[in-house]
């Protein structure tokens, strides 16, 4: 519980730093281990941990142009030996890794130095760049060993490299010390756009008590942290960067984050407007697509449908510049090029829509957001790199609607789930502002599974299943169909069905309805055959919940939770399974009607209806939440445990003469 509180209390802050003084230090010297370090076999604060960092030290000196790293690690279990291999990535031909020293210290104090030259391996090489990794592995590592190593990364005199300190690690850190000596002559610093970057800023996300300290005399920034818990690793976590303790320094043209976002946002917005420029060709295209008499709503939809026909290379293939040159195709420079070539990336298509909507007189803005499956936008971190995809805000009837034309087959107003509850920047009338998209309702992400099944006297079963989907589930299959042919999509649908139907039952996908028509729900039709049920002396048992016999309900096993729960998006799944029974069988017991409410969050309803030679089992699970605080985990687990129990209920038939099932 202690560590959870820490995550909750991580604070964001951004500062302007003023650099004075001059650096000069020794760094990363090997330390004689203490008796306690040698003898320790576990760290009480992280019971069962494979290893811990006894000490970490990172020094960055932009005057001498190097980063140095030093670590002392205690190996506590066999798994902890994995830390004996160290890889240092660097830009070959630009940077160099030097002064690699390492040693292993056994629990009895014996020291075994690294005397093998590290290997210099290619990681990735492309046109004009090469990333290598210097790899070394420590010798004679045992459980109980202390691993100690250091290295320096040297970069050219014409480069500065302000640090990003990932303070929190996958392993517990007992103590860490960070130092940064910024470049003294700040007035000479420019970024690669030629802008003067004479201010030094930093952003921190640190546990309570930890803070960056500026030492005026030496001109250095230091950070000391102790007792830092490992990075959490749980299922259904939001992106990890939302929790990690870290510090980021910047040489900047700006005084503070407001200043940064105002200017960088302005540049971004200008580029959006440039790309979505109203050109003659586009005006003609818009004129041919809409009629002046059309309402705003009709215009917005017509243009949306038009840009949806453009080949979206994020799902097909992006042409290389060499290919375009050989084909005589011009590089896409603006929205008109996208329209003319009928091809573009997701962002380019979004901006095409922006341009067309504006031409049609619809007040529209670009927005760029951080994809929620990758990272959570944090305005305290001054980096445009956080932002992924462009969406469009279009005003219809005075109301702003966020649309996602870059997601092929997303209906008008429907967002890819990674774009829901996602934050970033948007254009406003005078500049830009921070922006967060809204999410969907569970009603907009429905899956309805209807099974009409006939149980035969011999225990075999035949029937048909129809699965209707809207929202992200439908989008997923439609996107899959863009990247694969229909046969492959069918195969994958069959695979997904295997996880749904009970053992002994075969599901053969028959056909889709509406695979490319995003205005309608997508429907998959599946033929069912096989054997179902188990037999006792007097009875036959069928799975009461046909689609849930393999269900792996989340959260039922794990008692505690450190991090928030991220369920991606709200949705609802409704089943209606009709079993037609032979004359000889009668229903002795059906799954009990069950309602599991969870106010303002979710609901589960199970209802059986028995008729003549027939029983219908209906089940609905609706979730109207996406992110949950760990405080709500107990209720969440309780909810899913009740569902798991309800889903296990059998359907009990009495047979005159029971037959062998599967």
């Amino acid at each position, binding site marked *: 519980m202690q560590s959870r509180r820490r995550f909750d209390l991580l604070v964001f802050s951004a500062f302007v730093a003023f650099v004075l003084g001059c650096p000069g230090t020794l760094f990363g010297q090997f330390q004689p281990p203490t008796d306690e370090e040698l003898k320790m076999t576990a760290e009480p604060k992280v019971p*069962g941990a494979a290893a811990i960092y006894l000490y970490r030290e990172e020094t960055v000196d932009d005057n001498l142009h190097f980063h140095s790293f030093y670590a002392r690690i205690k190996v506590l*279990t*066999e*798994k902890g*030996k*994995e830390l*004996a291999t160290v890889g240092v990535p660097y830009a070959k031909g630009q940077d160099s890794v030097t002064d690699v020293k390492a040693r292993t210290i056994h629990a009895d104090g014996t020291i075994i130095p690294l005397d093998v030259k590290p*290997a210099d*391996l*290619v*990681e*990735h*090489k492309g*046109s004009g*760049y*090469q990333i290598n*990794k210097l790899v070394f*592995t420590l*010798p004679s*590592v*045992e459980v109980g060993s202390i691993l100690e190593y250091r290295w320096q990364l040297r970069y050219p*005199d014409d480069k500065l490299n302000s640090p990003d300190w990932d303070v929190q690690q996958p392993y517990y850190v007992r103590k860490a010390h960070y130092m940064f000596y910024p470049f003294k002559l700040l007035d*000479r610093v420019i*970024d*690669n756009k030629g802008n*003067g970057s004479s201010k030094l800023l930093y952003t921190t996300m640190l546990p309570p008590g930890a803070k960056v300290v500026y030492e005026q005399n030496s001109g250095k920034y230091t950070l000391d942290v102790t007792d830092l818990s490992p990075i959490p690793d749980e299922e259904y976590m939001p992106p990890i960067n939302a929790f990690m303790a870290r510090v980021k320094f910047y*040489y900047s043209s700006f005084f503070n984050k407001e200043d940064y976002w105002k200017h*960088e946002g302005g540049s971004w917005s200008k580029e959006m407007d440039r790309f979505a420029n109203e050109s003659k060709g586009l005006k003609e295209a818009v004129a041919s697509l809409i009629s002046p008499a059309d309402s705003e709503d009709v215009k917005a939809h017509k243009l949306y449908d038009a840009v949806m026909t453009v080949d979206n290379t994020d799902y*097909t*293939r992006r042409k*290389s510049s*060499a290919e375009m040159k*050989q084909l005589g195709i011009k590089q896409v420079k603006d929205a008109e090029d996208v329209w003319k070539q009928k091809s573009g*990336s997701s*962002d380019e298509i979004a901006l095409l829509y922006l341009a067309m909507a504006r031409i049609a007189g619809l007040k529209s803005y670009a927005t760029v957001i951080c994809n929620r499956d990758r990272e959570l936008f944090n305005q305290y971190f001054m980096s445009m*790199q956080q932002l*992924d995809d*462009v969406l469009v805000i279009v005003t219809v009837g005075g109301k702003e609607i966020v649309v996602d034309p870059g997601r092929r087959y997303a209906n008008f107003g429907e967002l890819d789930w990674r774009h829901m509850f996602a934050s970033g920047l948007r254009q406003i009338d005078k500049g830009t502002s921070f922006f967060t998209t809204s999410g969907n309702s569970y009603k907009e992400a429905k899956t309805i599974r209807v099974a009409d099944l006939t149980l035969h006297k011999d225990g075999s079963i035949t029937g048909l299943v129809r699965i209707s989907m809207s929202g992200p589930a439908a989008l997923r299959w439609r996107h899959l169909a*863009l990247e*694969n*042919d229909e*046969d*492959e999509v069918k195969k994958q649908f069959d*695979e997904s069905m*295997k996880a749904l139907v009970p*053992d002994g039952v075969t599901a053969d996908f028959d056909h889709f309805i509406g695979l490319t028509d995003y205005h309608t729900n997508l429907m998959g039709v599946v033929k069912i055959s096989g054997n179902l049920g188990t037999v*006792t*002396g007097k*009875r036959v*048992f069928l799975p009461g919940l046909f689609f849930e016999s393999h269900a*792996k*309900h989340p959260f*039922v*096993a*794990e008692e505690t939770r450190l991090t928030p729960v991220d369920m991606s998006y709200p949705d609802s799944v409704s089943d209606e399974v009709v079993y037609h029974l032979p004359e000889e069988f009668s229903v*002795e*017991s059906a799954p009990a009607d069950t309602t599991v409410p969870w106010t303002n969050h979710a609901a589960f309803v199970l209802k059986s209806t028995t008729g003549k030679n027939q029983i219908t089992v209906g089940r609905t699970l609706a979730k109207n939440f996406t992110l949950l605080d760990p405080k709500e985990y107990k209720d969440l687990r309780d909810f899913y*445990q009740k569902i798991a*129990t309800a889903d296990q209920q059998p359907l*009990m038939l009495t047979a005159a003469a029971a037959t062998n099932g599967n």
Partner: protein
Amino acid sequence: MRRPKSAIALALLVMTSVKPADASLFGKDKVQPAPTWAVDAAKIATPATAKNSEAVILSDEDLLTIDDKGRAVERERLVTRILKPQGRNDWGVCHASYDVDEKINYLRVWTILPDGKQLQAMEADFHEIGFNQDSVLLVTEKARYAVAPGADPGAVVICESEVQLRSYIDEKMWTFQYSIPVVNEALEVDLPPGRHHAESWHHYEAAKGMEMGPNRWRWELAQVPALDLRKTADAPDWMALAGRMSVLWGDAAVKGADNQWRAIGQWVDQLEAHRPDPTPAITAETLKLIEGAPDYYQKLNKITDYIQKNIRYFVIERGIGGHQAHPAGDIFRYRYGDCKDKTTLLISMLEVAGIHAYYVPVDHRRGFVDPALPSAFGDHMITAIEVPADVHDDRLQAIVKASNGKRYLIFDPTDERTPGGSLESSLQGSYGLLVVGAESQIVQLPILQPDASGANRVGAFKLAADGSITGAVDTTRRGAEGGAIRMRLKRNDEKDLRQDLERSLGEDIPGVTLDTYKYAEPDPLDKPVTLHYEVTAHQYGKQVGPLMLVRPRVVASYARPVSRDPRTVPIDLQATGHWHDSFDIAIPDGYVVDDMPTPVSLDTDFASYHSTVSAPESGKGKVLHYERDYIVKQLELPAEKQPDYLHLQGIIGSDEKATVVLKKLQ
């Protein structure tokens, strides 16, 4: 689309910040037309067999030119038509891999579009990637690749590469079968005068080699069918089934498979010569280890145990280092090494102890090493330990008898947890090359008796009137299965182990709470690993009016997902073993048994499954007893046995779901 990290880079105003791009050997500024051979191949019509394939190889031709010093240059020309969008991923990329002692002379990439227009990959389209992606690997091999321009359905992708190969491998392994069909395929080997060659085939009808010129041999195949196992459950490894051919042209190019294996063994022997020579430090450590060991087994066990527990697995593959071990002294000093290194140190230490041991190159993919295809290719090295004629110890189970009459214990020192005497399941039944100088030979690795591996599970549970259940389970795992659990304990920390157990129990009992658990891992590896855990679950018994439904198989499952699609490839049963479960469930007061599942009993030549549920005192007793016994006797079944296998799985699946009906007394 993420933005490039441009805003972060900084430069000093007074200095230049732009570095010249690396010069490339592969740069092409001017587009060259596709060669005639490629244009001709692109005209080949798509065969009917490729109807459902994502792509089809129209032509694949390898030419190996070996000079009089034995150095080989390989040229590959591959022409593929993309048929489906998903075909772009695997078949729209051309690549050539090479190591530190090899060199790519060229890699060229063209595409012919459906309308006949040609495109060529240019400098900026080429990339290089290293294979070193793991914390236990140090691998110098890398690949040059380019995404073919215009590689969309209908387009024909042309890859041409030439690589100067390492000089110490006198063999070409020609894998001519792919996951897509091939129309035309050819291998040509151009040998210097006087060089012999020997060829052998695996899983495919041999094609006759044609002499195209003086000592220039060519093999051609047409219409090679696709081998696609992606949707086949429990299939053997793809490489075990794929058609391939090996051509030897060095010392192993002699007549007869046995002689070829012998020659390859001698090559390995020479390669590893003196590598196991013990250093004083090795000798001292070994003597200390075996001091007081009363017999052969104890001596052996002390040494194998030492290697397994003290030498960390770390692969260093740099050129010939992918084939040749490090000297035993270095391995001992640094306490890490790969499979060859571990075997080398084991041979060294055993030598000090007066026990002879030998290298056995194998492959972890059962079926890859084929006695009929002598080859130096394989991905693993294990050890054969000579067992003296007077030693007969039941604990030494993984024994093979060689044609020289000697017995060898097959042992894998890289498997850090399977006890000496046993053998991990994935190697059982495979073939390996016993490297014993002039007596080198191919041997089949033993298939252990079912009782050598498996688990016993004993559970005692109490069911309450409200349907909740509490109980404790003790599991004892032995042999290779015990070794596998020990590896899991080694590789995971406590949090992961608990989560794994919770997850696995949660699949059997939804809503279960793991109250406590403890693994006991005795230090000697030949002792079983035990697991004790206690659980609680609400509503385990499902109440239906006066009835309560209870599944007597509370935990553990042996049922496997199966497909009823007709099968053409064997069924891989993965491991032999013997598993036994025995659960007692005390039923609540006031309930009697109303209905019971019938006992299950199935015996086949490859497996047996027996299960009973009993309620003593004719259904009025207080304890339900569930007992089952599952034995797997074979590692692999022919495809024709699919109905029998499905029947077995049906029986297991049905038994695992079987329900006892309890009735409340009025």
